């Protein structure tokens, strides 16, 4: 299969290794990988702040860049949820782009969903000895309905002990612009999330959205707690090296 990567704006700027590793894993699974030019961002940050017109143009850019792709895979539940959940409303008055948006919805997947549900490859043969816990990010879980896929990937990692995260369903307080627009409320939320992460006894916190992980790790770092945060892709990538 020819897989087009959606390097989200956040990983593109801050965590290019996540995108790179995603490419490596997909290649390892025997697929051709390309990264269509012109792509930047799903537009969620503007959309969720109420700037719909600005969001629409960013979304249009994304739609255009993947127009000729067969499948599109991204390392974020939140960005894929934006496409699936809100693009139809965003283009409701533009039949041509509505059609293109629907086409993109049909062919786009979050990484774990794609590997487990589409490729049916939950076992990537990874080894990683550690105690980890997993934060089910809100948009992946509630908007995309991703439940088992990431857990299946993790259960197949040899040596990995997966510990339950108390109150896992609670939002970490990131919420995109929420974290800077309502910084105190956001801080209280991430403080509670950190409390549960520490209580889990894990050395590594895993997730499938770098936004949430950036938020939680940023807080843990500030309060000097030595829990490492990793995208599932990073852990799999490391584990597949050995």
């Amino acid at each position, binding site marked *: 299969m020819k897989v087009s990567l959606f390097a989200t704006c956040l990983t*593109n*700027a801050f965590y290019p290794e996540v995108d790179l590793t995603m490419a490596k894993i997909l290649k390892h699974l025997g697929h051709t990988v390309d990264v269509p030019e012109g792509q930047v961002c799903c537009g969620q940050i503007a959309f969720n702040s*109420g700037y719909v017109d600005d969001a629409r143009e960013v979304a249009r850019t994304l739609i255009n860049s993947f127009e000729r792709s067969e499948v599109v895979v991204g390392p974020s539940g939140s960005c894929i949820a934006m496409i699936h959940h809100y693009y139809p409303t965003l283009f409701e008055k533009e039949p041509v782009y509505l059609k293109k948006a629907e086409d993109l919805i049909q062919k786009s997947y979050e990484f774990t969903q794609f590997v487990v549900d589409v490729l049916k490859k939950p076992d990537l043969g990874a080894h990683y000895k550690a105690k980890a816990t997993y934060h089910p990010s809100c948009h992946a879980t509630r908007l995309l309905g991703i439940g088992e896929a990431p857990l299946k990937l993790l259960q197949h990692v040899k040596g990995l002990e997966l510990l339950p995260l108390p109150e896992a369903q609670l939002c970490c307080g990131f919420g995109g612009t929420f974290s800077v627009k309502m910084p105190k409320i956001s801080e209280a939320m991430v403080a509670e999330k950190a409390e549960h992460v520490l209580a889990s006894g894990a050395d590594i916190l895993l997730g499938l959205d770098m936004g949430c992980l950036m938020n939680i790790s940023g807080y843990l770092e500030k309060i000097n707690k030595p829990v490492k945060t990793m995208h599932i892709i990073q852990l799999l990538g490391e584990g597949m090296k050995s």
Partner: protein
Amino acid sequence: MTMYNLTTDQRVDKALADNFLRQATRRATDRLRNNKYKASDELGNWEEWRNAGETIRKHVIANLDFYLHQLIEQMEKRGVHVHLAKTPADAVGIVRNIVREHDAKNVLKSKSMISEEIHLNHALEEDGAAAVETDLGEYIIQIAGEPPSHIIVPAMHKTRQQVADLFEPIAGHALSSDTPTLTRFVRIQMREQFLRGDIGITGCNFAVANTGSIVMVTNEGNGRMVSTLPRVQITLMGMERIVPSFRELDIMLNLLARSATGQRLSSYTTILTPPKKSADSDGPEEYHLVILDHNRSEILGDKLFRTALNCIRCGACFNVCPVYRQLGGHAYGSVYSGPIGSVITPLLEKDWKKWGHLPYFSSLCGACTEGCPVRIPLHDLLVKLRMRKTQSGHTPQVEQQIFKAYRYLFTREKTLRRALRLGAHLQWPFVRNHRITGGPAPLSNWTKSRTLPMVAPKPFMQIWADLNNKR
């Protein structure tokens, strides 16, 4: 009413500094939430119940004219006085007049969020006919002079000790803070009040259109006392609070009780088909129904927000909301707090200056939407409110500029690449141990409590291009 005089920021600070409040809120919402899960799981097909609830509410709202008409007709046929109040002031005026006409001195109230919405107690106090709240939670906050912090559990933020302290001046001696002592004290107080009451004011959970009945659910039975002992009764209802018939009522009562408190049915479900008939042994002889609009008609006509009227005020969205969990209700500043409060307050009050902060009291995690028994897409509605606020020019200039810049850069990948590489150089003054630890606003809002990863020396798009020898 002290909370009302503070700014949003001050209210948030106050709430976050109050560990008692935060612990109490966390504990109480956890309990309600877990009870709800038990009560909804037990049905085995909760999602179907939610579908039914949503269908009924949508149908009622789409045909509200018809059902209101039917309800009023049924009521008036039997001699109930029906009053339509366009504004909160109108509603207050109507109640005031009735109280004055009867020269009533002892007004009893059971729980009614509409009375909070129209700030009724305050007005009655001015008239020297202060209403006594007979719901335990409402009684507590009435003494404390505070607005409710939760639509179902108004005194959720109070600890037992705080309640005992509030009761002390009334009792004239110290009370121990155990629940039996406190409830016994209130029961004695209430009994006297019930016997003296000349007007009863109640809320309304549902009005059954085809029979003209009013349905109230309570857990203390006080609603029953308020609606049987006084000779005159006034029921306040929001105009959307209707079910077509008892068939739908059955479903809605299940959804309400299970979602609100995790009960199969509330302890007391009171169904009144007023007024008292000659064969009835008790009940009010004179019955007034006040139906409040307060911009609900406008919401009804607004296809973006109409679903907000589907709410049955169960409070389930509060109990799963991670923002409410940290703050409790008072920080919102509005009578209705929590997710649904953040949605309906700006729509009811139509004042962005005062209520423009509410749509942002959410990380858009979607827990509210998931928890709502009638499937109101609450987090989508919050985004739509932000959209409306933005489009009507009520957001800060700086913010508008930021999103203009965002749109420019994030539709031009190559330009963004250069900007990111510039950023990678400019970040150094703020970097400690390979993390960004400060910066200009609004970045500083982040770095006050968190660090930020460094902008990568090369963005992924560049790395990929280099790997594949493109340009």
